[in-house]
């Protein structure tokens, strides 16, 4: 999985101070309406009992999966995965079926009723700021992060950096980079001092969900045809049997009547 060669974010929960500069920056950069957001805070917040306390929270947005479930669930091809990382949603193709919302294991795509009815742009989610990364800038959330809890770069380099950090401070981090393998690898990599489940992140298998689902979906036609053929055979058999039986019965009846 580690040979994924494109851009990614890294988020270090030990560095995030929950100031929300990233959220404001995203809102302004992408002209998000005042009652909506593309970045959320997640996690248990303050844990423990006074005075033995800890804090666990992260900010998260679209994970930009290498094998996006939204993309494979979309019946009309509204989603594309750019070779350099971003998972892009195209409102022009979207029919508003919301399969992507159900498919995403991180519950990222969300339905926009206002835009949906007026502009037929039903779904909203993080874009990785193509307008910025295409001209060499970091996405808006990363660029302004005062503590560098968020960084942006080549996924491979960020992974190396993440593992180096864990190696340098084994007492500080959980020895795992979330997103390196989860769901086939994501472009939002997370370092944490608390178990990832406490940050609200789902436990996911290494193989992407859609690998299995696509495999199963791939069997639709063989199964449909096979099942159809089987059922047709059975139907024909039953029919023949019934016909024979009827014939036999009528013969019997006739014989009886003849008696």
């Amino acid at each position, binding site marked *: 999985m580690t040979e994924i060669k494109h851009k990614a974010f890294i988020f270090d929960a030990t560095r995030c101070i929950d100031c*929300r*500069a990233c959220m404001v920056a995203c*809102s302004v950069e992408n002209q998000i309406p*005042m009652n909506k957001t593309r970045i959320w805070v997640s996690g248990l917040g303050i844990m423990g009992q*006074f005075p033995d306390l800890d804090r666990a929270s992260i900010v998260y947005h679209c994970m930009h999966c290498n094998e996006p479930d939204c993309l494979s669930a979309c019946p009309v091809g509204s989603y594309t995965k750019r070779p350099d990382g971003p998972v892009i949603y195209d409102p022009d193709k979207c029919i508003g079926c919301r399969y992507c919302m159900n498919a995403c294991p991180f519950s990222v795509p969300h339905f926009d009723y206002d835009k949906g009815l007026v502009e037929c742009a039903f779904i909203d989610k993080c874009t990785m700021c193509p307008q910025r990364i295409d001209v060499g800038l970091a996405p808006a959330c990363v660029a302004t*992060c*005062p503590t560098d809890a968020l960084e942006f770069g080549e996924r491979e380099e960020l992974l190396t950096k993440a593992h180096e950090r864990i190696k340098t401070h084994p007492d500080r981090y959980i020895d795992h980079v979330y997103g390196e393998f989860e769901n086939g690898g994501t472009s939002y990599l997370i370092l944490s001092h608390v178990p990832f489940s406490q940050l609200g992140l789902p436990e996911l298998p290494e193989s992407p969900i859609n690998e299995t689902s696509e495999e199963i979906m791939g069997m639709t036609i063989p199964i449909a045809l096979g099942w159809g053929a089987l059922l047709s055979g059975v139907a024909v058999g039953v029919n023949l049997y019934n016909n024979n039986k009827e014939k036999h019965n009528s013969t019997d009846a006739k014989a009886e009547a003849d008696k």
Partner: protein
Amino acid sequence: MTSTVSRRDFLKMGAASAAAITLGTMLPPKVAQAARQAGQLNAEGDGYISSMCEMCVWRCGLIAKIKEGRVVKLEGNPEHPHSKGKLCPRGQSGLMNTYDPDRVLTPLIRVGKRGEGLFRKASWEEALDLVASKMQGIKDQYGPEAMVFSSTHNLSQPLFENLLYAFGSPNYGTQRSLCFNAMITAFLLTYGIEEPSRNYENVEYILMVGRNMMEAISTSETSELSHAIDRGAKLVYLDPRYTKTASKATEWIPIRPGTDSAFLLAMINVITTNKLADCDFVKKYVVGCDDIQEEMSKYTPAWAEQITGVPADTIERIAREYAAAAHNAMAHPGWRTSNFINSFQTERAIATLNALSGNVLKLGGCLSAEVAAEGAGLGVLNQPPYPRISALRLDGTPWKYPLVPLKLGVFQELRDAIVSGDPYQAHGWFISRQNPIMSLPDRGKTIEAFSKMEFIVTVDIIMNDTAWYSDVVLPEASYLERYDPLLPVGDKAFIRQPVIEPQGDARSALWIYKQLGERLGLGDYFQYEDEEDYIKQQLAPLGVSLEEVKSKGYAELPESKTNGQITFNTASGKIEVYSETLKNAGFSPWPTWEEPAMPGENEFYLLTGKVAQQTQFGTQNNQLLHKYSDEPRLWMNPKSARDLGLSDGNWVEVTSQVGNAHVVLLVTEAIRPDCVYMVPGYGHLSKGLKTAFGVGASDSALHLTYTDPISGSQALSQTFVTVKKA
């Protein structure tokens, strides 16, 4: 709860006003024209312009992205040492201050009763004539001292001071006594400087006393602290609340409020008793080195444990760790520490700890007491000397508070003197970019002070609570719409310049003060044609053109010379841990323990402290910040809530000696059981703040007024409250 305007809506509204501007003139707007000439904007009016943030007083450098004459995004300027390419949430949301639908865009004159919020629009001509005639009338009838002037730290403050001192009034209210008087007075008396600079490059051990750096963000310093922690520096943090800074600290000490100085004095005791200080440094540079051990002998860790609730061995260990880090240790001066009457002593103890570790040796030390003369090389405008002012200051400086520097003052005492009319009655109040109704303790009393006034005028960009109670409101251009005087930072002087046209009739403070000055016959104190001319005069000795500075965002200043000698600007030229000045004024010459007041039965300490999404009392109406702020609630420990039969989400009534407030309860482990906490700045009175009105409750309505006799600092946390179900 509040009405929200979508970004799309405000883009439309802005487009309408932009169209109005362009229709009114055949020439392109001045700002756009200048920016085009400087190559910052293209023919379509799109591009990037450098300027400076004003969402707090840290003043980060910013780069504004302009599209068709509108600001669409703000970025941190990588070349500015305060931002280094970053902006905090307030900086990022700055454009929503400018595009706030509640902006005041024409001069307003009150038509209803005070506080009723009924105004009529007026021309600048009419409003300025009215203000000048009222001010002159008060001067003629009662003397210039009957006019009070107040303003909070900002770049056009020198011109504000020109207006007040040329007018002849000694009565100057600043935010300083509500903020950092204790810190500045302590450091002036100990090191001879106002605020030592901090350097995190080599720091290994940081002691922070209520300096909530991760929420009261100073972008570059917050970043430096974060990086220091990341590379393994230890942070010991004293705070009764588990703030976001506490969550990043190596060690959080939930100390009893108001007892920080006992903790610090015990640290000094451990260090001096065990001879752990940098003795060479102390002998050479510290006044009091011979007696300090004896003077501090009574402050044992066991003694401090009784007071602070922190185990003696913890204090002893921290003192030893701090001393072991020697030059790489830093006791951070902070702003307000614990906000008690003894905060001055807390700051003196902090200054002493830094002296003992010898970390104040030079520029580049963890705490630098050497300050390069900033702004040397900039041109100074001609002006006559100020008239002699003989009237006493109403705030008691220096006749009641001999050690409080005149420029700091004691704002809360000024307010009290207005109410009492003692030693004389004030009759008029000129307020610029300040919201004393919200910022001063005991809001009811501030409103009473307002009622004593014949005339009140407020300069601001929105209808803040003080403007709501004023007779005239003068609309200032926002920080993205105006020039201010240059700001020297290190070896550069940075410019704040308009990145868009001012909306409506809004004007810069430089223009407003000059207009008023001329009407009051004080034109000689405002010798500039316009804002650009002011900056050109500042730039004259540097031989740099305004165009170049506008385009680069700054002017280079001549290298400041430091001779490498260590001198302290105190009477003795040394660090005065023992202060003859304090002794002569009748105070303890040593850092000393002063017992703070304690809450009675069933009372809580009322704590206040910043959140990362708001600045003081001025940003709650910013829709972007409103969007990403937590609901302002009253924090209470679950144990206390259980005892009172309260649960999370209950409406509660909080009562102090001077007021009460209704607020929603947040039950959280992140606070001591004997404390409650309120986010400051909420509970606005002005209905002209449509986003902020009706949100949260005001801590100012509850705060009692207590003034430290040495530094003049207001003890904001020395208010005790009861809480019951509303």
